[in-house]
């Protein structure tokens, strides 16, 4: 276990360096000379030259990269020349919004997916099971922006129960905050639960055929205890992995949902930075998000690292191969 963690940590370093390099390249490739962006089009060439020199923009790219990396390692990610905020401030301001959205979405997704998965596994092959499996499959084909406008149409336009867009911080108005977050979280959850249900259902069906479930029945335990204690726990391995990956993915903010519902989260910060050519914010925030994703994946890997002496080992190692690539893919962007 420790050897594995050490090896993964060693692997993490070059990955993070490559992530930072790519981040820097993308940001410096964006059109528009930073000096002109700051000074405006009317600036005299002398002033531009002076600023370029001050900011080190006349240095070669690799030198600038090393300088930036040096600052980053000291915890200085830079300061937006538009708002004057530091990158850390900007991210710290937006992160709670994205985080709250993510947590709510995962909770709702699990709350829908897990009970259906259990109900289907118990009655596998029944009409109910086939109906739910089909529904989940259909739901996987609904893009988030579609469910978003469907929910807006239903709850904001027709029923007028909830606001379509906007945000209030939780500290100012807890109820209002939740009212603004319900629809976006529900939108994300609608995309999450089918995957949760499919994975848990198939693992649970396999578990229910195990000897120790027959043993639990033979011990005369209550059906609820057999299901939730004896069967759910060993079945939830792949589920934990998926949830971990989802969280890692959503650290980057749910770009589409945040945009549609006008939530000031990380996703909107990044999109905004691209539009206003705010390179410092863009490279700083992308770096944080990408590093967060890499580290989250590392934690998930370490937590479910199969140990051969573990009786769940065959299950664990098959779980890692069974993880369909689509789960990890960039597919469900945002």
């Amino acid at each position: 276990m420790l050897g594995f963690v050490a090896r993964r940590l060693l692997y993490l370093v070059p990955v993070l360096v490559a992530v930072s390099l790519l981040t820097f390249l993308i940001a410096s490739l964006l059109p528009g000379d930073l000096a002109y962006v700051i000074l405006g089009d009317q600036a005299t060439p002398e002033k531009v030259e002076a600023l370029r020199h001050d900011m080190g923009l006349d240095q070669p790219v690799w030198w600038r990269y090393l300088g930036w990396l040096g600052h980053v390692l000291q915890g200085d990610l830079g300061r937006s020349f538009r708002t004057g905020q530091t990158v850390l401030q900007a991210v710290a301001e937006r992160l709670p919004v994205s985080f709250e959205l993510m947590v709510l979405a995962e909770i709702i997704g699990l709350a829908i997916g897990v009970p259906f998965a259990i109900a289907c596994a118990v009655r596998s092959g029944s009409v109910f099971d086939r109906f739910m499996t089909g529904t989940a499959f259909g739901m996987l084909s609904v893009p988030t922006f579609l469910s978003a406008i469907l929910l807006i149409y239903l709850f904001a336009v027709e029923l007028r129960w909830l606001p379509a867009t906007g945000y209030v911080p939780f500290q100012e108005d807890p109820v209002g905050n939740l009212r603004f977050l319900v629809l976006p979280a529900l939108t994300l959850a609608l995309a999450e639960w089918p995957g949760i249900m499919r994975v848990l259902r198939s693992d649970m069906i396999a578990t229910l055929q195990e000897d120790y479930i027959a043993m639990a029945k033979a011990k005369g335990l209550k059906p609820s205890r057999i299901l939730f204690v004896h069967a759910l726990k060993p079945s939830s391995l792949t589920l934990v992995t998926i949830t971990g990956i989802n969280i890692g993915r959503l650290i980057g903010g749910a770009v589409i949902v945040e945009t549609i519902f006008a939530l000031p989260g990380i996703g909107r910060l990044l999109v905004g930075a691209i539009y206003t050519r705010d390179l410092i914010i863009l490279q700083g925030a992308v770096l944080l998000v990408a590093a967060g994703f890499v580290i989250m994946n590392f934690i998930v890997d370490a937590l479910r690292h199969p140990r051969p002496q573990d009786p769940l080992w065959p299950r664990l190692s098959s779980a890692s191969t069974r993880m369909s690539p689509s789960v990890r893919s960039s597919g469900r962007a945002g």
Partner: protein
Amino acid sequence: MTEPALLSVKNVSVDLPTPRGNLRAVDQIDLNIGAGRTLGIVGESGCGKTMLSRAILQLLPKKAKLSGRVMFDGQDLVRLDPERLRKLRGRSLAVVFQDPMTSLNPVLTIGTQLIETLQEHLELDSVAAKWRSVELLGAVGIPAPQQRLMQYPHQLSGGMRQRVAIAIALSCEPKLLIADEPTTALDVTIQAQILDLLAREQRRRHMAMILITHDLGVVAGRTDDVAVMYAGRVVERAPTPVLFKKMHMPYTEALLAAIPKIDAAPHAPLPAISGRPPDPTRPIQGCSFSPRCRYAAGRCYREKPLLAASESPDHQYACFHPIQVTAGVCA
């Protein structure tokens, strides 16, 4: 046997639908076992003995169809409502499965798995339940029981796990214990220890026990009665000493011959029963052992022999050409 039996299996059949057609795993079995008695059920793998035990426990796979009656303590388990059945299982009807690697839940501690059974059936508070768990683990020969409670099954050896499974089965003082090949998955050196433990606890607690095995040697000296199963049917049934002294069914004789002898010459070929059990999805006309039986003749291929008593009412067998010679000393 004048007293009413604790468990009586009446005309029980189990059918399993398979892609190749219906599979009759258990075929019209009648069995009785009195309180405090021990019954050995012996047969090759695939003869239906595990299905029979699952049928008694009402733990058959969902697709399986069960017919007949399983009377336990005056109640028909087949028709008992789930809640009352649940109260019976673990309390007065307990089981030890074949493979302790798979029959203990890998993600729960030994303590959890013991205590949950105790608290389900006996109204014990958690301190008393824990106390009793330690006592039980000690009784089945597990050293340092206090520490074991916190451990997970994979931290224990196979033999230790089977002892834990036995402790769980014994925990509520059941009236009947079904041990389904309790030693098959274990090292040979451990087997005798586990069997002796079961026999000792059975006598001490005066509970009835069904010992299921493929090894005729295992039931010798450890059970009161033996039933030999072949292809889903009981083919011979007798008190254990009688059976070993005077077996009538050629299959029983073949089973006995298949036990490796300690005094056999080195490099002597291991005796085995030639051929394989019949395909249970294709029922055979006539005696199902006839293709492999060296005594089989005309009638055996046409007609199914019924289980019937011979000289004594206790000894029943299903054979047209029973062996008349005395089989000699028991194994």
